[in-house]
């Protein structure tokens, strides 16, 4: 891997601080203004590495590494940096609250259709992107506070930390409720338009429709049965029983129209006791306010599904479990979300790799959604979900490698690894990006004039993340190398897209530097930067693991070792050590190297072989002298 995640994460930290921290205050907002998503992304550019990559930790002032302090110097020293972060985070969490109700509006990220103007109500609508990023941010914050608190003794500071934890925890609960109310199960008959498209997508073997429907339902039998357990929030359905019913599931763009409220059963439990001791014991500890009605169309959107799936994963990550970041009620909500997560993963993985044929539906891009839209973007999004499914199931190398080559094709198609031509459609994937029309948003517009749309331009950064994810799963050395090379090339592309203006230097995204005829931007896109940071974080974590081992190399290393050890023993037997102190030193060094080689032969056979090679050369050097002509007396 040529990416050097440590170096680039440090650079991004520096750049983020330079751009956001002016005159001792944090400035929110970037290219698309400030909103509940962008601000969270901006903050996560710092917090994500700090909470997910060991050496970047800032929550134990005693252990903060100097390189990290250097990168964040404007924020202060090892004590004031975490304090400032706590205050910035507190500002975020109080900024997006309306009368006790955490709000998840898309704000300036919502774009109007065709130059019309969006109403305030439209802009204030909660969106899945915000739920998702709030889950990630809240978990990062709570974990950060938990650890940092151990170093804090001053009462005032401890109070601040408690308050932040409470705010973050409340937002987390509200975001989880939001996700439960935006889950969607879209049921249709095989003869409907969506049904026809779905059948067309999965039927790679050219079988009769009836057979495919039966296959489809029998492969997904368990999933269909599991929908009986979807009992709270949106996405509940009873229509799946019909023998001709097909469906898709995932997340809509916002709270689904007519989604029932999710009852909260929370009563104060162990963790919050300390802070709620004063309150009445029967009251729910976390007041998330009234749950707003939804307007979103009851259909899964691939983009929002991927975003939600990514975030929900954080809820049952190792870190979340080890640090015990969820309270009782959140654990209940988390279980409910995990069910939907499982259903969604299974569904999309099944559809994407349907049938026993030589070509998976996924391998025949571009992917077509059930409302008839086609784009390489959809292929990438479906791939993302399939990757998650493979992670979950520890998929075989063969399957992983097939997904890998899909990514490689996508990188070509999107002109990430190929040069582009003028008017190339691949460029549109980056700028303006995939246009997602948010159906249902018209309802908030007087005279139904302006529909809200969402532009998704994260293609290259998502590609990087998924390449690294697959590379990390592969246990075949060569296949992994292929994926890492692809990741390197995607990174090269991303690195060229960094802004060059001084104030926001090294932040993303300036596609005009790579593609012709695109508008130039001055301010950073936190949306994009955060996604690149997430990619670098996965790259960093991949590098903290031992390298893959090639079995052939292990065999070779041991063969060499046997010979070397024997020659060494022969040399000792001869009593060469008595010849001189210098000879003894050489023999001592040889012994140490042999021991080291034996110790690492299984985990690092390459290094072991190199050591043994050196030993063999030294030993042969001694032996050769004995046989040299001039030694003949």
């Amino acid at each position: 891997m040529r990416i050097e995640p440590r170096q680039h994460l440090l650079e991004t930290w520096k750049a983020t601080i330079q751009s956001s921290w002016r005159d001792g205050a944090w400035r929110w907002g970037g290219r698309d203004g400030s909103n509940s998503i962008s601000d969270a992304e901006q903050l996560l550019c710092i917090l994500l590495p700090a909470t997910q990559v060991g050496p970047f930790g800032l929550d134990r002032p005693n252990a903060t590494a100097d390189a990290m302090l250097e990168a964040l110097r404007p924020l202060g020293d090892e004590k004031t940096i975490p304090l400032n972060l706590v205050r910035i985070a507190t500002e975020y969490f109080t900024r997006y609250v309306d009368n006790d109700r955490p709000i998840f509006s898309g704000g300036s990220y919502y774009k109007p259709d065709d130059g019309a103007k969006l109403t305030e109500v439209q802009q204030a609508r909660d969106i899945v992107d915000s739920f998702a990023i709030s889950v990630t941010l809240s978990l990062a914050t709570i974990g950060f506070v938990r650890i940092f608190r151990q170093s804090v003794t001053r009462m005032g500071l401890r109070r601040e930390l408690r308050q932040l934890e409470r705010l973050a925890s409340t937002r987390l609960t509200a975001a989880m409720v939001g996700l439960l109310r935006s889950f969607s199960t879209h049921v249709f008959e095989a003869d409907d338009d969506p049904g026809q498209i779905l059948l067309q997508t999965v039927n790679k073997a050219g079988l009769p429709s009836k057979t495919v429907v039966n296959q489809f339902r029998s492969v997904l039998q368990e999933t269909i049965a599991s929908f009986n357990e979807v009992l709270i929030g949106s996405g509940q359905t009873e229509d799946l029983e019909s023998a001709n019913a097909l469906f898709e599931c995932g997340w809509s763009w916002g709270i689904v129209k007519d989604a029932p409220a999710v009852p909260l059963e929370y009563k104060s439990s162990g963790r919050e006791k300390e802070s709620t001791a004063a309150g009445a014991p029967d009251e729910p500890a976390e007041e998330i306010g009234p749950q707003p009605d939804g307007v979103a169309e009851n259909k899964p959107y691939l983009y929002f599904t991927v975003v939600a799936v990514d975030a929900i994963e954080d809820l049952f990550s190792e870190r979340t479990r080890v640090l015990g970041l969820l309270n009782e009620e959140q654990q209940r909500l988390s279980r409910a979300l995990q069910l939907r997560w499982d259903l969604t993963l299974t569904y999309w993985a099944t559809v994407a790799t349907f049938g026993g044929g030589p070509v998976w539906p996924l391998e025949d891009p571009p992917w077509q959604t059930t409302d008839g839209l086609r784009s390489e973007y959809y292929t990438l999004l479906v791939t993302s979900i399939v990757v998650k499914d493979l992670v979950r199931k520890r998929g075989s190398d063969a399957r992983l490698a097939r997904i890998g080559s899909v990514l490689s094709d996508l990188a070509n198609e999107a002109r990430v690894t190929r040069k582009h031509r003028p008017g190339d459609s691949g460029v549109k994937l980056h700028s303006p990006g995939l246009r997602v029309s948010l159906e249902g948003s018209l309802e908030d517009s007087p005279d139904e004039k302006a529909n809200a749309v969402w532009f998704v331009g994260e293609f290259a950064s998502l590609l990087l993340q998924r390449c690294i994810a697959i590379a990390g799963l592969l246990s075949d050395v060569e296949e992994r190398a292929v994926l890492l090379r692809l990741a390197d090339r995607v990174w090269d592309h991303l690195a060229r897209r960094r802004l060059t203006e001084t104030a926001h230097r090294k932040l993303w995204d300036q596609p005009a530097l790579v593609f012709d005829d695109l508008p130039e931007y001055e301010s950073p896109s936190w949306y994009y930067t955060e996604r690149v940071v997430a990619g670098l974080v996965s790259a960093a974590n991949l590098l903290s693991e031992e390298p893959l081992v090639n079995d052939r190399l292990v065999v070779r290393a041991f063969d060499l070792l046997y010979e070397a050890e024997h020659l060494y023993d022969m040399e000792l037997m001869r009593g060469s050590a008595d010849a001189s102190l210098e000879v003894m030193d050489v023999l001592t060094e040889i012994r140490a190297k042999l021991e080291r080689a034996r110790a690492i032969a299984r985990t690092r056979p390459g290094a072991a072989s190199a050591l043994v090679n050196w030993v063999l050369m030294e030993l042969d050097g001694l032996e050769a002298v004995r046989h040299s002509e001039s030694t003949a007396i």
Partner: protein
Amino acid sequence: MFVFAASDKGGTGRSVTSSNLLYRSALQGNDVCYLDFDFGSPTAGAIFGIERAENGTTSGSGMHRFLLQEVYQPERIDVWTATDRRGIRDGQANTGRLVLLPGDVGGGDFPDRADLVGRCLELFLRLNEEFSLCMVDLSAGRNLAVEMVLKVTAMPEMQKITSRWLVFHRWTRQHVVAAGGLVNGPRGLLTIAEKSGHDRQQFANNLRYVRTAVIDPAPSTQSGLTAKQGIWLDECNRRLTRLAGEHQVGKNLLLGSVPLDPMLQWQEQLITDKDVVSGVANQETRNAFDLLARRLVDDSSWETL
């Protein structure tokens, strides 16, 4: 302000660091004095370059005999004029006073006598009026002198006077553990302080560590070390940092670090600006002393989390 210099082990550079720190403080314009409470082996005279009080004064009125009430007035040595080192004597303008109260030759430890506390309090109060910074150099380990000053500083008369503690340790595993033990251990400073009437938390807030003879593992200053030595140092540093955190001797309680200096390795003495200019002492070492002297009186360096 009173600053008490303590260490668990001998040879930590406690005396040489606190002398240099005080010297820098005087150069910064503060009136300062140095009380040699290292009764077993008073060496401050040697560090300041005062030959006649090299291992304590022979005049018979050093700190030890004064506290035992064998003399009425302790001897005071004005370092600027009494030192035999020209580098210290010459060309110091706009400096504060720098006074040494030396120990006695062959002093030895104290008897545990109640009247010593009163005598010591009287001395502290008097010195506090004259000097803005009084550095009390205590001998290594837990001893009667430590217990005495803890009693004295807990007395109501001393409540308005800031007392700070510096614990010196070298940057090695044994020293880190020992320093942590000296402060937090079962018979540690915190416990003795609490028994003497201090508020434990408040006392802890006024205590910081100083790391001495530190080899900076950053590549730029590692000149002369091989790559393997560099890696080894870096790894040790990492582990030590973790260990220090676990023993509550971590960065957040660190007032400063003094790098290893060849000059101090050979001879314990003051490092003058001249020594730096002539190239015999490292600039980093001098700067570290200067920074320590500033931080010592800068309240923001004493804020706790």
